[in-house]
């Protein structure tokens, strides 16, 4: 098939070359997207940012060397180059991130709830001070200024919500159980371990924050795959995490294709639970089925409408934390 197409194309090329003289560019070349502005010669040349995934507290490229490209929204030419390269995470990247998250878990789980709350609150503080940067990133991803500002506000508020929940959900979910015998018996919530999150595409920041925060508030560590539409904002948010006091490995953020990576999350034996917001029904089914290999706690969802994520009743709460908690029951005899 390919040779045929080529032949036809070259025939057309020849015809065109003959008719127009002189040709402005060689036919078949892409048009110049932005003519170089000669006045720029006196202005400072911008330093472009290399966008990297956030694993074990460090910013890394994909081990695979692969990338995918994200374009700015049309009017946003000023900041980033029009097209940026974002790492296209691989199965090995998933495994590296899971290892980091697993190693970070014991330390994170061991911290007092008060301390976890303070660390998450610190994240909100850093996000607040980086509001312009987060907002700008969302605008580049296609939001209007007002939408972007509202999403950043909601995201910061959501972090504060969970920061304050870290030392309270325990009392709401624990119980002292009146067993019919001479035993003291109580049940307490405990984190499960490392949870994989496949974040919704939209909203890029609020969706990511809303899915990750309840999981780490409960004492789990997370490997998250950012939505594909605007993965840059996830990376900008990772820079907030990196400069807060969140220990390395507690939150790891990968970029890449959900279709490729979701089942790698599902098949990984060290991942104990999955929270996946996936549009494709077949992919949701595959994640659920592969998760059965180690009896994973798999929660899949059809993504909510982007607006719904700003609704506190729909997008945050005790239930979000509870989803990735175990109940541990302890018995001890009472007697002399």
């Amino acid at each position, binding site marked *: 098939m390919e040779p045929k197409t080529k032949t036809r194309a070259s025939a057309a090329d020849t015809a065109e070359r003959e008719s127009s003289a002189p040709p402005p560019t060689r036919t078949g070349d892409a048009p110049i997207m932005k003519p170089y502005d000669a006045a720029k010669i006196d202005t400072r040349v911008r330093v472009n940012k290399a966008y990297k995934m956030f694993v074990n507290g460090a910013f890394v490229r994909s081990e695979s060397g692969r990338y995918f490209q994200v374009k700015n929204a049309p009017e946003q030419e000023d900041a980033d180059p029009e097209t940026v390269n974002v790492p296209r995470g691989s199965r090995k990247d998933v495994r590296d991130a899971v290892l980091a998250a697993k190693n970070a878990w014991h330390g994170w789980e061991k911290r007092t709830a008060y301390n976890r709350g303070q660390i998450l609150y610190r994240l909100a503080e850093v996000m607040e001070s980086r509001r312009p940067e987060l907002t700008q990133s969302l605008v580049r991803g296609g939001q209007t200024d007002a939408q972007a500002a509202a999403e950043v506000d909601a995201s910061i508020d959501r972090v504060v919500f969970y920061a304050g929940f870290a030392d309270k959900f325990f009392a709401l*979910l624990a*119980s002292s*159980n*009146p*067993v*019919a*015998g001479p*035993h003291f*018996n109580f*049940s307490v919530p405990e984190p*499960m371990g490392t949870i994989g999150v496949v974040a919704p595409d939209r909203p890029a920041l609020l969706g990511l924050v809303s899915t990750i925060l309840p999981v780490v508030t409960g004492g789990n560590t997370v490997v998250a795959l950012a939505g594909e539409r605007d993965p840059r904002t996830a990376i900008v948010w990772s820079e907030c995490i990196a400069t807060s006091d969140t220990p390395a490995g507690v939150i790891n953020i990968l970029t890449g294709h959900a279709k490729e990576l979701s089942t790698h999350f599902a098949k990984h034996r060290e991942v*104990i639970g999955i929270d996946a917001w996936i549009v494709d*029904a*077949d992919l*949701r*089914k*595959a994640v*659920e*089925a592969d*998760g*059965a*290999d*180690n*009896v994973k*706690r798999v929660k899949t969802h059809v993504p909510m409408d982007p607006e719904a994520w700003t609704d506190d009743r729909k997008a945050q*709460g*005790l*239930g979000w934390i509870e989803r990735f908690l*175990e*109940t*541990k*029951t*302890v*018995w*001890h*005899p009472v007697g002399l």
Partner: protein
Amino acid sequence: MTITKSDSSDTSRLERPSNKPTAALDFGMAWDYAPAPEAPDHVRIDPKYGLFIGGRWVTPRSGKFFPTISPSTEQVLAEVAEANAQDVDDAVKAAREAYDKYWSKMRGADRAKYIFRIARAIQEKARELAIVESMNGGKPIKESRDVDVPLAAAHFFYHAGWADKLDYAFQGRRYRSLGVAGQIIPWNFPLLMAAWKLAPALACGNTVVLKPAETTPLTALLLAKIIEEAELPPGVVNIVTGAGETGFALVNHPDVNKIAFTGSTGVGKKIQRAIAGTTKRLTLELGGKAANVVFADAPIDQAVDGIVNGIYFNQGHVCCAGSRLLVEESVHDVIVRKLRDRMATLRLGDPLDKNTDVGAINSKAQLARIQELVAAGEAEGCERYSAPCKLPEKGFWFAPTFFTGASMSSRVAREEIFGPVLTIMTFRTPDEAVEKANNTMYGLSAGVWTDKGAKIFYMATKLKAGVIWGNTFNKFDPTSPFGGYKESGFGREGGRQGLSAYVEVE
């Protein structure tokens, strides 16, 4: 202290050696009690049972029946219907109709009264249920009489009270019942598992299709009679008997909203895979390989009794059995000696005898599984000790057994044996105990024995298991949530937390 190694030519049928003491406490015949069997004359088992669907007893569309036996005598007790996919469909339709017409519309207070009726009727028929449970399942009558049946009644009584108090259980959060629940239960605690499944499902407003285990359907069928006599609306509880195929017909039925399964991890994974891509909710209570950790500062004699209770209760057919004993190195020898002494006093035999401590193995297949794993333990070089008890000629039996000298990688240290077989290993520091205890794909239960309070809490925090018994083992209560971590499943049964398995909470 040397440990008597069993004669490998005959692994399960050991004679008690009358002339040489096998334990420090050798009282000759003093441990032999006169027979004290529970009289089964009061019990009436029908020769043939149909399926309980839509409030009626119906013959299976499959036309097939299969015999159910007593594992202690191999005698056929009754013929039981084998439900096929059509029968399961009938049952699900009946459950759906009952949900739409009656159960979802009824006030919680009224649902409660029906469930209270069931609890009371179980107490009234306690003796009959205990005897049938021991006949059909092989467990000692003292366990079915004192544990299974009273706990089954307690589960219904406890959950009945929740039916009109769900607003308090999920304070400030909206919830709704799920619809039709398909429930599949195991053979180790047949009536009790039926109670664990039915009571919370009914209290939360769901209707049920319950499938008892293939080898132990009788008490579930007696429970169906109780439900009939309690005049529950037809179809609220449907009981379909059969084997794995019947279970999978239920799992795969498109109009079931919830699957609750208790059984092996292997089957649990198949079920989880089977319902992928559906909206069915799932809770799984699967296998275990519980660590029972004994520190040198433990009350040793109590611990030894706890170890025996942990592994030989119900012939070790317990998902949360303390099948891996981790003892602090310094007390290993004394514990092994005391364990052998204690095991010499265990009476194995007729499940209906009130003095029996160890009953029959539930089925021929399970006995073969136990024998295979025990042979693997011997082949791997672990040292075996089996209690010197005489095994009856008829039926399926296995003497209480333990292995010493096992490594963490031994099959007997990793795989669930689901029989009266204990694997003993040692540790030196608490952290090593934690490391070894958690080195398993399971996480259902664990035990800790020490006189030091802070150490109990340290261990209870570190052990990755759903139930931790400190200075006790194998205790159950309807108010106490039960369920596993990791590959021991998910979801809880019992307590306020257990209700979440049968409602959708926003």
